């Protein structure tokens, strides 16, 4: 075999595969496909001054207008904030904040006057704001039973372990259980307009439509929802109210569709905040139907607070906020400023690079590697 193949091999390097012993063997030659030969078409951007500089300018030119738009919109939103914690001696709520305990039966009320310099048009949103309140603490966030809140009868009687130590009280299951529910915000806020003619008009506050639709209709259900003429009092029989609550859950509101677990104040509270300083929607002040008058004209107002909620023990603050809204939500200049900053930095860098490129860029304008 060796001898006979000598000549063929020596004369020219390439002899055919079907030499001695070849024959029917399948060739192991790799396929000549773009994938296997790594010749897939590819887009390979090369960073040159010609591509980078315009990119900087374009980013700058896009971001700056967006930022300005956001900033202007945010500035157009009217917002009024009043802190009623009562830290200062001078504050009307000082007394209330001082002598406080969760189970005091006599409500402490304080009145805070304020002046709105601008009239507020269309719907005005009324928030309560809390500071230094760690609603995002893990042990706090966990402390709830979603299936109980969804109306599950077994969970109502046997709350999940996550609710501990707010699961049972006096051997009765707590409904709603858990630390979040237990610490529900329970100040009552009322607004009065002091008409220049001397009368004090109470401003109507709507408490419907302040929670997410999905929460109200999907996530939260009263136990035994679905049944005809349900009696919440009967349904919650055998459970007890959270320790810090003054009223049981079935007495949160008079209206049947806003009572029990589907009370919107409750739902709003149960949706925990992301950061320790937050606000939650309390009420909506609907614009008058005739639309001629502003919802809240310029003038003197009074905020009447039934002071129930203690925050001073953890150095927290309580605020009442009135705000109009726009397409971008509430007043927040941060995003606008951020956009303007990034846009400006890009633009500035673009200019600097352009100057550099112009001054010393012609050194090697033909790329070394042509590929």
């Amino acid at each position, binding site marked *: 075999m060796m001898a006979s193949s*000598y000549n063929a091999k020596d004369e020219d390097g390439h002899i055919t595969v079907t030499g001695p012993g070849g024959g029917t063997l399948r060739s192991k030659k790799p396929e000549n496909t773009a994938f296997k030969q790594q010749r897939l078409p590819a887009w390979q951007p*090369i960073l040159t001054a010609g591509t980078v500089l315009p990119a900087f300018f374009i980013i700058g030119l896009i971001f700056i207008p967006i930022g300005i738009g956001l900033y202007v919109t945010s500035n157009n939103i009217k917002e009024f904030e009043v802190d009623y914690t009562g830290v200062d001696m001078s504050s009307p709520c000082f007394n209330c904040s001082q002598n406080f305990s969760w189970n005091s039966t006599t409500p402490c009320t304080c009145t805070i006057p304020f002046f709105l310099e601008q009239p507020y048009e269309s719907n005005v949103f009324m928030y309560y704001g809390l500071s230094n309140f*760690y609603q995002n*603490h893990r042990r706090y966030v966990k402390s709830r039973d979603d299936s109980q809140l969804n109306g599950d009868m077994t969970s109502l009687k046997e709350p999940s372990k996550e609710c501990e130590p707010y699961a049972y009280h006096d051997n009765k299951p707590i409904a709603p259980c858990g630390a979040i529910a237990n610490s529900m915000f329970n100040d009552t806020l009322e607004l009065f307009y002091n008409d220049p003619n001397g009368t004090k008009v109470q401003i109507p506050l709507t408490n419907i439509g302040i929670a997410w639709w999905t929460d109200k209709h999907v996530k939260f259900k009263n136990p035994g929802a679905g049944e005809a003429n349900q009696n919440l009092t009967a349904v919650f029989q055998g459970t007890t109210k959270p320790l810090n609550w003054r009223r049981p859950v079935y007495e949160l509101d008079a209206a049947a569709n806003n009572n029990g677990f589907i009370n919107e104040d409750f739902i709003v509270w149960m949706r925990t*905040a992301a950061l320790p300083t937050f606000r*939650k929607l309390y009420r909506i002040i609907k614009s008058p139907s005739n639309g001629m008058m502003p919802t809240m004209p310029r003038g003197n107002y009074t905020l009447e607070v039934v002071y129930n909620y203690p925050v001073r*023990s953890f150095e927290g603050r309580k605020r009442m906020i009135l705000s109009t809204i726009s397409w971008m939500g509430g007043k*927040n200049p*941060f995003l606008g400023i951020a956009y303007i900053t990034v846009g400006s930095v890009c633009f500035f860098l673009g200019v600097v690079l352009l100057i550099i490129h112009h001054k010393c860029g012609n050194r090697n304008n033909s790329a070394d590697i042509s*590929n």
Partner: protein
Amino acid sequence: MAQEGVESGLTWEVRANSRHYHKPKQKNSFMCFRWGRYADNLVRSYKYSPLTFLPLTLFEQFQRVANLYFLLMVVLQCVPVISSIPWYISIIPLFTVLSIRALKDLVNDMARRRSDSWINSRPCDVLISQSFNTAQWKDLFVGDVLRIRKDQVIPADLLLLCSSEPHSLCYVETADIDGETNLKYRQALSATHNELTSHPSEEALAAFDGVVLCEEPNNRLHTFRGQLHWRGECLLLDNEHILLRGTVLRNTEFAYGLTIYTGADTKILRSCGKVRMKITRMEKVFNKVVIGIVVSVLMTALLLAIGSGVFSAWLMNDLGVMSVLVVDSNPVYTGFLVYWSYIILLSPAMPIILYITFEVIHTVHSQFIGSDLEMYWQPADKPAQARNTSLSEELGQVGYLLSDKTGTLTQNHLLFRQCCIAGEIYGDASVRAEDTEPMDLSWNPFSRGGLYMSAPSLVKKLRGQECPLSRQFLTAMSLCHTVMAEWKNEAPVYQAASPDEEALVCAARELGWVFLSRTRDFIVVSELGVTRQYQLLALLDFTSQRRRMSVLVREPEGGLKLYCKGADIVILERLQKDFPYLERSETALELFSQACLRTLCVAVRSVPEASWEQWSKILAQSAAMATCERDALLEKLYDQMERELQLLGVTAIEDRLQEGVPETIALLQQAGLKIWVLTGDKKETAVNIGYSCKLLDSDTRLLEWQELRQILQSPDPVVSFFKGRQTELWAVDKGRTEGKTAIVLTGPELAEFDQRPDWGTTFMSLAAGCQSVLCCRVTPGQKAEIVTLVRKHTNSVTMSIGDGANDVNMIKTAHVGVGIAGVEGGQAVQNADFALSQFRFLQRLLLVHGRWSYRRISIFLRYFLFKTCGFALVHIWFGFLNGFSAQTLYENWFIALYTVFYTSTPIMLLAFFEQDVSSESSLRWPELYKIGQRQELSSPLLLSLSLLHAVYASLIFFFIPCGVFYNTAFDYQTMAVTVSMAATFTAIIEDHPQQQTF
């Protein structure tokens, strides 16, 4: 009898035709108890049984530290007090990873089981009560007598009893064992041949009641020692009488054998060792990074836990709504729990999926190597092959290439070009082989062409019977070898284990000395048409230590002749004194080696009858001795015989360079590789090959041992080296500042390094300044030692490339081993990490695939680091705003799917396909390769930059949304979605600029 066997170490006893004797001693096991002696002939390469699969596979997988770490994470998550992420979030990836690996193992194991059962059920003929019945392999026992047909695979290690051929010769092909495709002959003992060859053979074989005493099963494929006790005689057995399992019977109708070792005891199964795991440098970097991440996670968690403790202490003052957040009203305990929670929360910084992805990328890269058309060798139908799939990026960082010469740089396709007989040189090596004027050999009926030597004067001398020395020279060429002749179409076809021998025997055939056939005792040669039969008395075989071989024959006339051929230094020192042509022969040797020819000296000795008799007696005695003693004695015996030689001549064989070798070497040198050549050849030959393949330039100064030694011994070696070089250059060649130097060493000189370990460092620093290093006359062991030396004293990745069994050591020792699938069998390839067909494919393997792979994997690693750390670090910043409570900022499912699903595709595609420059450009600018050698893309600096980048990104991820959501009515869930979207988009977009970072 048995007693005697025990004394000489022969303790394995096999009785022919006595199953009842062996069966009770069969190896068996139950649980962990094992008993019995003789293994059955079942191959069990599978690892698992249905019962043991789960525990075994889990045990294997949890031997990886990473898996244990992840298991720990899962266990932590199952503790309700500290679980910051639900348990299913990380058990799913872990479970997936484990089950994929287990499934892979299972599939492999099933395949093994299938192939096992296929092998075990192969048929063979067993002699049972006086007739041969077909049985399956698995039913064989030690002591069975088998009949093997032509082209059948031999089922167990057999003692050849007799065969259908004359003298009970038979031929086997050992391709499965050592990859060599030439036939080897085996021959039965004359005793068994004479007694058992009868018709019908069944009767005689059934009556055979010999007892074999031999060594315990071992893995030495090429030795066997034993005795056959039969009819009161004690016959010695050696390797020549053994048919190994896995070999194939060829050219023989039937062979009858006695089963000696079965199943797990057979030599082939004993010798399949485990493959040593090679860990790439990248993997080491990667492991360091992982450890770094884990440590910093632990540290960060500790800091955060302290924060949590402080926060809890502050909360304790509050008697109101928040006080419940402190566990057991104990801040320290809370902090302790939070520590574990944070470890869990930050663990996605080092996701398990990284390991899997790493493996997948490696596999794909290896596939690309295998499917590269440019590395496909048409004539042999062999594509390149990545046998070890986890080393591909190492190819992009090679700093030292240590190459074998023969068969690697050269074709190992040998041509007989010149010879020197009695001081006269025939042939001319200065003309190319193809241009040689063909001689008129029409007088020779056996001529087949293939002789590239033009020496009509020699032919005239031979035919004219003028010069007895030249006739002897050719007789030696046709007798002194181990070539087998196979008759096809009325002509002998030669099967040689070494291409040198084939070239010599073919040349002799062309010149009229035709080797016709060989039996155990005779060699038949046709000398210019006269057929002569030489009795073969002894064959003193070739080993790499002896570097020579001899045959002792009795001429038809009755005289005893020893023909010896071997390396020049070995032969020349054994010559008779005052040999007339010595000086001229030495000149010829020098001439030949300058022309890059391989030389062998051929010599003869007339042996007196008396000394032969004495010698053969000792030889017979030695056969019964224990292996190690016997080897030493044989060495001495052979040495006694091979002396007083008379030089006949010198042969010169051309080993041509492979295609594209000089170009490849030049390219690789440009790419910054140091190329060393390690060869067993003579210094002159090696140096000449060095010149012809552009490894050395014509103006390169060769630094040889004397000088090197002086430099190494001087107190400040490097300085004196460079000083010496400069002054010399100053004297010789003014104006040239850069000096080219190459070190030339030989094996015995290298041995001195063993005694002076301190020279290693200096030598390596010298070598770093040199163009190349040539090591000649080195043994396979020394080759590996050189690789170890380089590995020890440099940080570079070493690559060994070779083609023969003598390169296996260095291939295994180097970081990356490449085997050339060439003429010399497949052992190198079987032990290599990559298999190529041609040396020149190396440029593509290194400069294209290696570079790409290194680049891709570095980018992948850095990107992954960025992606996962940026993702996980957000939790640290969030900790400052949630009271260090280990609250997560992502939805649970997002954490589970982020690395696996949301951000995996782009980086995978990048790691598969990224090409910064095309393959053509990579080859055109080999300097690009230096990035890999300097590890620029995976340097600690770049890795820390990636980490900083991740920290920066996580700050942006968190604090921009934080600014937006601060003091607003937006809830936690909204923020979680925002931050996770930011992380995902960044990870995807960041993927693109990654490829342009450089």
